């Protein structure tokens, strides 16, 4: 049964989360973009701001609505909290006999409550769960962060020009993966409960049940966000893209897109499912120990495909092809899902505005325009 959380209760929610030991993170404006940062008070939220997004373009503008979540998304998803940009994996100490003592370095920090994750962000998290938690090996670091994260999702009531989650069936309404899911309506939020933790929180806040009218308004909001979308992924992001891509490895479009692509790797940094990382080593100044860490990597770098003296993907064309064929194609073979969740970040944050739905349209022959 959904509840109603009034704007005035946001601070109560923050207080309740803090009392449970959580560090609260929520959307705020930093350097012209909305990102997640420590949230102590509802006043810090981006009230009345909206993001205008186009290929290679992101600007915050005043919105007509004076709401806190009138925007679509910023450059981050949940990824940097779970699969950290840099994280130490283990350390080694050399003892007096010259032997090495290795020790895994698991994270130690306060659990995090994230407020404002979007449906596409949750979908991306579930894709990363498949990469890092299922199968033969489990990533202990990702698992630790995952266990120590509480998610208050906020359903979208607005889509940017780069959003296409309707076609990827990952939004604009969150369907799983959250503890609480909010939909902003006038004066507050309709709240849906996704877990026992979320339920306990709502009961502690003494929220009232949402009225039928509030539920109708909430449904209209997400419907509005869905209707706003003008972009789509051809073949609705289905497994069919796998064969289309793998049967078109010599398509002339690859050469054409490579002429525009700067191979900068921005797309992979903002992509909420990209998981490539390389390992780094930092010895202590005394040289008696060393820390082995991992750091985000990108298949758009030369080094990514380096192997004893040669680089397998030595051109931008090979790298772009690698990225797209993996993300939309062979991801299916490995994880039984697409690697794309329709968030549009790679389009927005690409300095030259390359749009993967447009590339896919060129290769598949199916339009990327949503009717």
């Amino acid at each position, binding site marked *: 049964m959904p509840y109603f959380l009034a704007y005035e209760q946001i601070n109560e929610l923050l207080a309740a989360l803090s009392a449970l030991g959580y560090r609260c993170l929520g959307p705020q404006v930093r350097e012209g973009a909305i990102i997640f940062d420590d949230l102590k008070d509802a006043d810090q939220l981006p009230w009345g701001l909206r993001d205008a997004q186009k290929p290679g373009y992101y600007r915050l503008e005043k919105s007509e609505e004076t709401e806190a979540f009138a925007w679509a998304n910023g450059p981050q998803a949940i990824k940097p909290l779970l699969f950290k940009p840099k994280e130490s*994996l*283990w350390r*080694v100490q*050399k003892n007096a006999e*010259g*032997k*090495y*003592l*290795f*020790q*895994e370095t698991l994270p130690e920090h306060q659990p995090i409550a994230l407020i404002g994750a979007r449906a596409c962000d949750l979908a991306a998290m579930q894709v990363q769960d498949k*990469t*890092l938690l299922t*199968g*033969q*090996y489990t*990533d*202990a670091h990702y698992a630790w962060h995952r266990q120590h994260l509480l998610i208050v999702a906020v359903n979208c009531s607005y889509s940017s020009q780069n959003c296409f989650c309707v076609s990827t069936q990952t939004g604009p309404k969150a369907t799983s993966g959250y503890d609480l899911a909010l939909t902003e309506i006038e004066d507050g939020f309709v709240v849906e409960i996704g877990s026992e933790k979320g339920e306990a929180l709502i009961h502690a806040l003494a929220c009232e049940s949402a009225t039928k009218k509030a539920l109708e308004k909430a449904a209209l909001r997400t419907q509005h966000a869905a209707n706003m979308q003008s972009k789509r992924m051809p073949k609705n992001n289905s497994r069919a893209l796998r064969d289309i891509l*793998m049967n078109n*490895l010599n398509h002339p479009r690859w050469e054409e897109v490579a002429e525009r692509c700067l191979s900068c790797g921005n797309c992979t940094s903002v992509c909420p499912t990209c*998981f*490539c*990382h*390389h*390992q*780094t*080593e930092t*010895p202590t100044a005394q*040289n008696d120990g*060393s820390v*082995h860490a*991992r750091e985000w*990597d990108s*298949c758009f770098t030369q080094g*990514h*495909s*380096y*192997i*004893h*003296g040669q680089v*397998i*993907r030595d*051109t931008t*064309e*090979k*790298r772009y*092809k*690698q990225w797209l*064929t*993996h993300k939309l194609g*062979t991801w*299916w*073979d*490995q994880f039984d899902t697409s690697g794309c969740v329709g968030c549009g970040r790679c389009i927005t944050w690409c300095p030259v505005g390359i749009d993967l739905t447009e590339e896919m349209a060129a290769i598949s022959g199916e339009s990327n325009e949503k009717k």
Partner: protein
Amino acid sequence: MKKNKHPIDTPVNMNVVARREESSDIFTLTLAFSDRPEFSYDFQPGQFNMLYLFGVGEVPISILEHGKNDTQYAHIIRRVGRVTQGLSLLKVGDCVGLRGPFGRGWPLEAAKGKDVLIVTGGLGCAPSVSIIHFILKHRADYGRLMILQGVKHSSDLIFKKQYAAWASCPNVQVALAADVSLPNWPGHTGLITELLDQVHLNTANTIVMMCGPGAMMRATAERLSTLKVPEEAIYLSLERNMECAMGHCGHCQFGGYFICKEGPVFNYLEVKALLTQKGF
């Protein structure tokens, strides 16, 4: 695996118990779980370990064979990058870190009772040496063993003595090919695929194991197909940059596979489509 304690996430300390120079840039390091024998594990030829050099980093190295006992593991290493350069300076008694074993090895069961054709190209192909040693150790379980090695230039051939030693083993045939050769080259001058006609395969009862450059493996597989060797009887070991060995870092992703996890040994049919695709 006989025990499930082998180190996967975090390395354990290993002692260098033996080292041998194989050529100017290839050496064999034998490592032992001196303090923690409970970590010792069974492995399949073709699997690899991640060897860690203190303060420098890790590198994937194919496991050659056990040393004097089954807590010891020999690795053939080519000095080529920072880590292997550093490993080449280690002496008996020095320490390294190890995680492993990782990946899928050669199809030992499928090969039982059959002739085995090993085709390798390029400079010293460690995964093939592990299976050759394994077959020689379990000689009665396998039929004829044929070893074909191709090099660009006849002077690239390392392990010359090794080939002679293998050739003198019962029911073993060794053939060498060099694209370009100097006088007195005992092998064939030309492509390795041309050697396939000389070995007279019992095509219905042969398992092929290849390792080396993609183009060579593709050409060999195609020639074998025309000789009526079924494609499903052909296996190959692939090599890519592997940093985590657990299918998480993305460097060895090859189409729908992570080479570190689903490979490095594949059936030819699994990887045929991408084998000569540039950029994969």
